[in-house]
């Protein structure tokens, strides 16, 4: 199936001229208004208080996890046998308390946060890349190739991902990069579906035809027209993917099948905390709170982005 429907030269020229006129009018209006759609979206985002607040909190959490352990007196793996299982207190700088080996929980939570967030970002990057490539290709090619590629996506959806993830972890091992790979395998489908949909609708838009008729090279079309229109959905779905990925890692770690010692992550900490929560509930509650707050923030940011980029979609 041809990529673009071939029309007669006159038709193409006519629609090109119309598109040109439309673009000129649009540019004129934009010049009068003085704001690009991105600036508009940014303004709308900041007006959404939940989203704006969530962004600030998230940035704070990330900074804390990145920089905090360097500022705190305790190391995340230093066992202090004199200070085992202490509840949170202010005097000995164990603000979150200690675990049963005397390790400071605050530092461990922040270091665990680093790992969780890093896994989140890496897996999101990988699955977004895979998803965009898959979706854009399927949308571009259309026809049978598209149908086949989307069938694969449907299949991936039909499978209970956690079980396959457990299977993969069992077979392949629990090294850090393998965990990332495992998570990636199940996180790319949403992005692929959305990108494919967007590509399909872009393909049939007249300004693409107009650009081709005017002789704009394909590469310019892709980077000048297609990519900017994809950026919106990609941004939104990235913020949807990240919490899912962090959650998957946390579940795996909670089950004892994810990140292994000596590294730690929020999932591992919650696992450990759940085991001793009868005597040291803080060991469960602090990492759990950090994880929950982070996930919540991503959700609100995702909603805010979606509203900002497409305000009709309430």
């Amino acid at each position: 199936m041809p990529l673009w429907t071939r029309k007669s030269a006159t038709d193409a020229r006519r629609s090109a001229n119309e598109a040109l006129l439309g673009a000129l009018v649009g540019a004129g209006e934009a010049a009068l208004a003085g704001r690009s759609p991105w600036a508009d979206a940014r303004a709308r985002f900041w007006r959404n208080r939940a989203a704006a607040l969530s962004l600030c909190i998230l940035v704070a959490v990330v900074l804390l996890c990145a920089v905090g352990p360097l500022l705190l007196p305790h190391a995340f793996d230093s066992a202090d046998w004199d200070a085992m299982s202490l509840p949170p207190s202010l005097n000995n700088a164990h603000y979150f308390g200690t675990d049963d080996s005397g390790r400071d929980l605050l530092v461990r939570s922040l270091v665990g946060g680093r790992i969780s967030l890093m896994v989140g970002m890496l897996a999101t990057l990988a699955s977004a890349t895979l998803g965009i490539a898959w979706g854009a290709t399927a949308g571009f090619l259309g026809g049978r190739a598209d149908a086949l590629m989307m069938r694969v996506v449907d299949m991936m959806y039909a499978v209970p991902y956690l079980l396959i993830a457990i299977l993969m972890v069992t077979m392949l091992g629990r090294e850090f990069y393998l965990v990332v790979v495992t998570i990636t395998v199940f996180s790319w489908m949403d992005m692929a579906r959305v990108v494919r949909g967007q590509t399909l609708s872009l393909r049939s838009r007249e300004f693409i035809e107009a650009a081709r008729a005017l002789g704009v090279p394909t590469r310019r079309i892709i980077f000048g027209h297609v990519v900017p229109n994809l950026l919106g959905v990609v941004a939104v779905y990235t913020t949807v993917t990240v919490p899912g990925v962090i959650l998957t890692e946390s579940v795996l770690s909670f089950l004892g099948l994810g990140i292994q010692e000596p590294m730690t992550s929020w999932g591992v900490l919650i696992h450990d905390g759940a085991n001793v929560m009868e005597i040291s509930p803080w060991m469960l509650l602090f990492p759990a709170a950090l994880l929950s707050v982070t996930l919540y923030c991503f959700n609100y940011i995702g909603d805010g982005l979606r509203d900002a980029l497409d305000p009709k979609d309430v």
Partner: protein
Amino acid sequence: MGSYCLRRILATLPTLLVVVTVCYLMLHATPGGPFDDERKVSAVVLANLQAKYHLDQPMWKQYLYYLNNLLHGDLGASFRYADWSVNELVAKALPVSAAIGGGAIVLSLLIGVLLGSVAALRQNSAVDYLVMLMGNLGHAVPSFVIGPVLILVFAVWLRLLPAGGWDDFAPRYIVLPMALLVFINVATIGRVMRGSLIEVLHSNFIRTARAKGLPTRIIVLRHAMKPALLPVVSLIGPLAISSITSAVVTETVFSLPGLGKLIVNGAANRDYTLVLGLVVLVTVIAVGFNLLVDLAYAALDPKIRY
């Protein structure tokens, strides 16, 4: 209807085949796994594996034997336990998971539909805010956080229920796990039902029903419910699948001897064949469930005719 069913069933076969094949190939590729000559297993286990998986044959023959076994319902032999086949382990664990998981789905549908409907009919009331709040919480806070918190509150602080374990379907061990699953499901179902019913109530045909002088009760139950329930029905498939995921977590949190715990233990013990067999089983159940839901949807919506 019959040909529609048949077509849908046939459509699921490729998925199952792909999953089974991929898992099987992964098993072959695993170092130290049953197909690797470096495996370290006892003689008895080796004998079991030999019998089930025909390890001395060329790979494609092994694969066919495996498929054949599956079609006969034989899920394989355990890599670690010489005395148990996968089928036997499953037979002990399945009733537990089915009881809790199945019961949770039914209960969450009932409660979710009820709460969502009330929230839609009484917008901005207490019930409405409750449904929205639950929706938010259940969506963002993970189940393995809510579970231990439930245990903390009800078992440790209030001492009302046991913290976990199992005693042959005794109710007190079922309450908390089911509560957890129901909470998570109701969060989604309630929100979807609420949104769906609100939208249906704005339809033109509801206005016609009002113009006919019908009381609200009849309008909601007879005119609005069916179209409003459709999104919820299409939710059941993904919900069941995520229940399987939740079951793994729930059984770990509450130490229940179900399929989820079996898988996790199997993974921890590197009992490859057990995990493989369980994954195949659960995938079949998941795909089968999706199929049922599709058929139910088609039965409900008169516009879908074959």
